């Protein structure tokens, strides 16, 4: 206890220094995690069909402790070695063991903080199963394909932290050290897969995912102390006086290096070639490894696209797929942050070399590598795709343009991040994440906001322009705070640009004049509020269980079928139970669903045919009256769809009433009652107007949207998915305005407008539901075609026919009936 106290109290400054070193990494990761957690909940609205989005969301908080673990060693040790503060620290009266311990404890504290944040964000977003179910090694129960349980992640992050320390103590070059950390990080997985494969070879037993995770956990437990010990040894080898000899040797090497570096420099006649030579020579290994990773990530997943499944490749392929964008962003990072780049640039600046020239030359080598990889990829992918036997594999072979665009975004963003952050360790970790976020944002905006591709291409050039503009200051190390300001500007354009375009699109939807809208809306609200609940029109079914209980293989026994027919309602009042209520309350409105109206229409057609055959007016007039009563009640409804449903029945009534067989019964009271119940065109349009307004009002509650979709939202699915919610409001205004225009009945200019609002962009107007092609036909023929389009029967000749029927009833019979 006292040792611990003394360790803390005597070296408070040391703790403070180490914590400060770690702060930027913690702050950046928390910032990114917070941004992602804020953005993520917005995504599922638009990313319909991406079933695993929830699990993906769950992974986001978990990734950050892991990234921290990978970067802590590089920041605490690598950076110290890079800036040579390690030599100064070694000269202080501080025991190396103490220092190593402080660094490790600080890293573990940071890790604990990251975990605390991760676990609390998980608790916030975790819905089904809760957080408790994640405290297990196997996959969480109840969460299908859920991420691995927390103990495994935590154990792995501790292991990774130790790997980070080991690599940083062992290897001086930070970039190489981070690569080693990543390789070591995959070690438990590789060992677990190898173990499971050996198990398969030996025992013919295939282990499940849960067992694989258990194996991985076991391997982590085994290798963690080993790496801890190795890390300690490496630290001691670097810091302890007894290793002075080797340190001296190292020191000598270091002093020799610049000399030999310049002495091996070829005599070059062009500053361009010198700069290119310099950028290759300064980090040949880093460039080589990155290029290899890129080509590996592009080519190997293609090789595994065969019919025979290889488990190891299958498991590793997704990882390899991630490697090439990662390598691409590292190429970007290396432009400004490879080994000692800052000093070299300062050297060039001091000699008055043009910043643009340096800028171009620094980019030339990574871009040439990128181009080479793309060339190799394209040749390989083209060949691969030509020899592949199946077309399905081709779906995942991206084209040259696709892969170039993805790589370009990763590269430009990462090079910008590396110029702004100035630290290699931070850039290597944060660069790919920010680049991936920007890439994800671009893809999302393209899919959900339908941002034009040309705009995204232009925006992707911005980070390049920014680093070019900052180049003179960067070379002189005077880039701050300009670089931060520039980062804010670039981020604002990247994020704000697509949003601005989307906002412009929403603005362009149009709508209504504000005063007109307010007046109309007030009227709409009052209609909605003053209307009581409608009667729901339902249908009585026969004894359906008769058919449901039978054995599938047997045909239906005759007695069952007979029972069914006997139980089947034969009169309208038996078939439509709500008819009685409708008749008791003639002033009440009714509503029905589309399916019931379709079924009623079919039945009415059948009854009409029967009447044509048996001329039994008495039984048919009961159906006619039923249709009339339902139509009248639907017409009173304040739902737009009910008005269209009333149209269906009135069209049938109009068509039926004009039949000569029906006209023969025109003196009958039933005939008269049906015609009297029909609305005139003016009355019908007034009912429609009320319903349109009330349906519109039903979209809003106070000033807020009500989440439910009503009929005005038909066609909203054809808008960009994410914008649909935003467009809903102005769009419904426009639909209401168009409907009101239609109801004035003065022109047919509303038809193309309604088509545009309601139909898929691929449906041409002349073949859509509002086209003359259909509207020139008798409406009765159109009822069974596409029932979704609102107002499709408005203003058609059947309305005049009904007016004529009403007029005839007043004035006496005419000779114009058909059939």
């Amino acid at each position, binding site marked *: 206890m006292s040792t611990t106290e003394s360790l803390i109290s005597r070296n408070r400054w040391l703790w403070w220094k180490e914590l400060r070193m770690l702060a930027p990494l913690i702050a950046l990761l928390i910032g990114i995690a917070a941004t992602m957690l804020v953005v993520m909940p917005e995504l599922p609205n*638009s990313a319909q069909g991406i079933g695993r989005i929830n699990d993906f969301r769950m992974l986001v908080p978990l990734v950050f402790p892991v990234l921290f673990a990978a970067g802590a060693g590089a920041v605490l040790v690598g950076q110290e070695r890079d800036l040579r503060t390690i030599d100064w620290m070694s000269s202080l009266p501080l025991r190396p063991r103490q220092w190593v311990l402080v660094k490790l404890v600080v890293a573990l504290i940071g890790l604990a903080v990251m975990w605390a944040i991760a676990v609390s964000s998980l608790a916030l977003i975790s819905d089904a199963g809760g957080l408790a179910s994640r405290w297990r090694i196997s996959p969480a129960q109840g969460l299908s394909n859920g991420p691995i349980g927390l103990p495994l992640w935590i154990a792995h992050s501790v292991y990774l932290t130790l790997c980070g320390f080991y690599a940083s103590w062992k290897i001086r070059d930070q970039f190489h050290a981070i690569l080693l950390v990543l390789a070591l990080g995959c070690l438990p997985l590789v060992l677990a897969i190898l173990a499971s494969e050996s198990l398969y070879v030996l025992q013919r037993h295939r282990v499940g995912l849960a067992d694989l995770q258990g194996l991985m956990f076991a391997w982590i437990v085994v290798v963690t102390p080993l790496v801890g010990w190795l890390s300690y040894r490496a630290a001691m080898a670097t810091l302890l006086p007894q290793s002075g000899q080797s340190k001296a040797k190292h020191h000598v090497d270091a002093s020799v290096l610049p000399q030999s570096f310049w002495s091996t420099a070829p*005599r070059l*006649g*062009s500053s*361009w*070639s*010198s700069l290119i030579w310099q950028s*290759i020579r300064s980090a040949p290994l880093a460039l080589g490894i990155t290029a290899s990773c890129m080509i590996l990530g592009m080519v190997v997943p293609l090789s595994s696209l065969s019919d025979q499944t290889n488990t190891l490749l299958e498991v590793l392929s997704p990882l390899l797929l991630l490697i090439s964008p990662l390598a691409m962003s590292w190429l970007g990072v290396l432009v400004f942050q490879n080994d000692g780049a800052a000093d070299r640039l300062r050297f060039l600046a001091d000699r008055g070399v043009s910043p643009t020239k340096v800028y171009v030359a620094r980019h*030339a080598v990574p871009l*040439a590598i990128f*181009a080479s990889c*793309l*060339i190799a990829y*394209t040749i390989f992918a*083209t060949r691969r*795709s030509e020899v*592949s036997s*199946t*077309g*399905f594999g*081709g779906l995942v072979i991206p084209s*040259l*343009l*696709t892969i170039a665009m993805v790589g370009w975004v990763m590269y430009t963003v990462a090079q910008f991040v590396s110029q702004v952050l100035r630290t290699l360790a931070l850039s290597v970790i944060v660069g790919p994440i920010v680049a991936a976020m920007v890439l994800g944002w671009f893809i999302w905006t*393209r*899919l*959900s906001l*339908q941002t034009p591709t040309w705009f995204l291409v232009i925006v992707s050039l911005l980070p390049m322009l920014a680093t070019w503009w900052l180049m003179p200051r960067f070379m002189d190390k005077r880039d701050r705070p300009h670089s931060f300001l520039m980062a804010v500007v670039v981020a604002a354009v990247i994020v704000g640009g697509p949003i601005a375009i989307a906002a412009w699109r929403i603005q362009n939807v149009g709508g209504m004049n504000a005063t007109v809208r307010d007046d109309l809306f007030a009227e709409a609200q009052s209609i909605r509020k003053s209307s009581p609940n409608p009667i729901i029109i339902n249908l009585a079914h026969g004894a359906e269980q*008769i058919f449901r209980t039978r054995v599938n293989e*047997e*045909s*239906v026994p005759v007695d069952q*079928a*007979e029972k*069914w*027919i006997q139980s*089947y309602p034969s009169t309208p009042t038996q078939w439509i139970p709500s008819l009685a209520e409708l008749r008791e309350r003639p002033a009440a409105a009714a509503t029905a669903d589309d399916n019931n109206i379709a079924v009623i*229409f*079919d039945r009415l*057609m*059948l009854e*009409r*045919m029967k009447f*044509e*055959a048996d001329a039994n007016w008495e039984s048919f007039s009961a159906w006619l009256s039923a249709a009339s009563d339902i139509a009248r009640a639907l017409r009173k409804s304040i739902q737009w769809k009910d008005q269209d449903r009333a149209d269906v029945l009135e069209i049938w009534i109009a068509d039926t009433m004009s039949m000569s067989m029906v006209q023969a019964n025109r003196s009958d009271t039933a005939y008269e009652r049906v015609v009297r119940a029909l609305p005139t065109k003016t009355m019908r349009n007034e009912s429609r107007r009320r319903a349109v307004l009330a349906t519109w009002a039903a979209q809003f509650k106070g000033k807020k949207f009500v989440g439910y979709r009503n009929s005005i939202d038909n066609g909203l*699915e*054809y808008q960009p998915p994410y914008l649909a919610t935003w467009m809903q409001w102005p769009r419904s205004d426009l639909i209401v305005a168009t409907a009101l225009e239609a109801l004035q009945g003065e022109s047919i200019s509303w038809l193309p407008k309604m088509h545009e609002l309601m139909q*898929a*962009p*691929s*449906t*041409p107007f002349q073949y859509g*539901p509002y086209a003359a092609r*259909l509207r020139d036909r*008798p409406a*009765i*023929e159109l009822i*069974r*075609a*596409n029932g979704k389009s609102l107002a499709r029967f408005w203003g058609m000749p059947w309305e005049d026919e009904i007016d004529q029927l009403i007029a005839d009833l007043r004035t006496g019979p005419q000779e114009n009936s058909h059939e």
Partner: protein
Amino acid sequence: MSKHPLTSRDFGLITIVLLPLLIFGGMIVASMIRWRIEDRELTQSIESIVGQGNTIDSTTLPRLYDERTSDEPTATWKSILAATEAHNAKFGGPFAWESETDSYDSVVPPGEDWVESKIIARYAEDAQPIIDKIETLLGSDEAIWVPFVFEGLYTNLNEVQQMRGVARLLHNCFLDAVHRGNNDRAIILIQASERLFGNDYQPSMLVDELVRMACYSSMENDLRRSIAADVWSDGDREQIGVILSEPFDWDAKWRTAIESEMFAVFPTLFSDGMPSLGLNNGATNLPIMFAPSTLSSYLEGEQSIATIRGAGTKRHVDAVGRANKEWMSGAAKISLDRWMQIPSLDTRWVISMTTPAYEAFAVAFRRSANDHRFTRTVFALREFRAKFQSWPESLGELSRVGLPNSETQAWDDGPFAYHINQDGEAVIVDQARSDITYTDEGNPPERLVLKK
């Protein structure tokens, strides 16, 4: 850095950097040039199909459909569909919901006991007004126009499926008419099926050609069984002969159906983003951009399938299979313009979406055409018996009653299996060997025993 003369090292270093960039740039330029060339060729391919100055867009299919059909019988057809739905719903179970095992499908000649007769009689009686309505259509042979609202691939096909309900209605009424010995009525029902699902039907998509074939096949099945049961008089057979001798242009039907499919799918591929495909599935509008060579390959493939002759035969099915493979392998060749496609280099997945359907479609044609040949053969056997008071020794003899030998060919291109049993009845099986089960569809071969 002091100035030195330029050496090969300078050039070497600059070349290392410039060369990949130049090659990459060259690839982009080459791809774009190829794009332009292929685009011109695509326009020519399109014009070779739809005529000079025309293109294939979302109006092509509905325009052709409207041209090929007539709107005269529309109102009657619509009312038939509606009333049939209601009628079948009223009778429920096997009458409303299609299932092979549910239907009462045995042809029972007059005088024989039939458990289901009562209910079928009730059904047929109630259906009479609908049959009357259908009869009004018999006078005209115009292709019925259905007022579709065309929405790319998602044109309302629900109503097409409801044709099956009408076929079911005609079938049940036919069983009743045969059982009652009302042959005149039974023949009217056969004529009605022929009118609705025969040559006059104009499909707008592949699916409705399939439905049509299923409905027509149901009628032919009824005919074969009734002929086997020997319910028809000489006069009746004369009328049936007229219906059965109606020639079917299978090749024309095949071509129309495949081209309809092409006219439905192609505009969505052409419009950069598959809007109809994506939007109607509730997914986002996928940014898909096909290179002209992909589109050409799609069009040429479709055309090569559509123009295969001999529809309704095994030869045709094999040829479609071969053409599919060739289409796939042709499409595998990556023309340079495909480097600029988004997102994938290879677009055989688009073709994979349709090719299995085409092969299955060809099999359905073969099945349907064989059903027709089989029906004609069964009919000719009965004619032969009526004319010569004996069964023919072999099917080849049926040429004596005017049936060409080509009609007696069965599934595997041999003659239908035929023999006379010990009771003196003719036994015919719809395949060359009656001892094997036809495995393509897993169904046993149809075996008919023709009464003496």
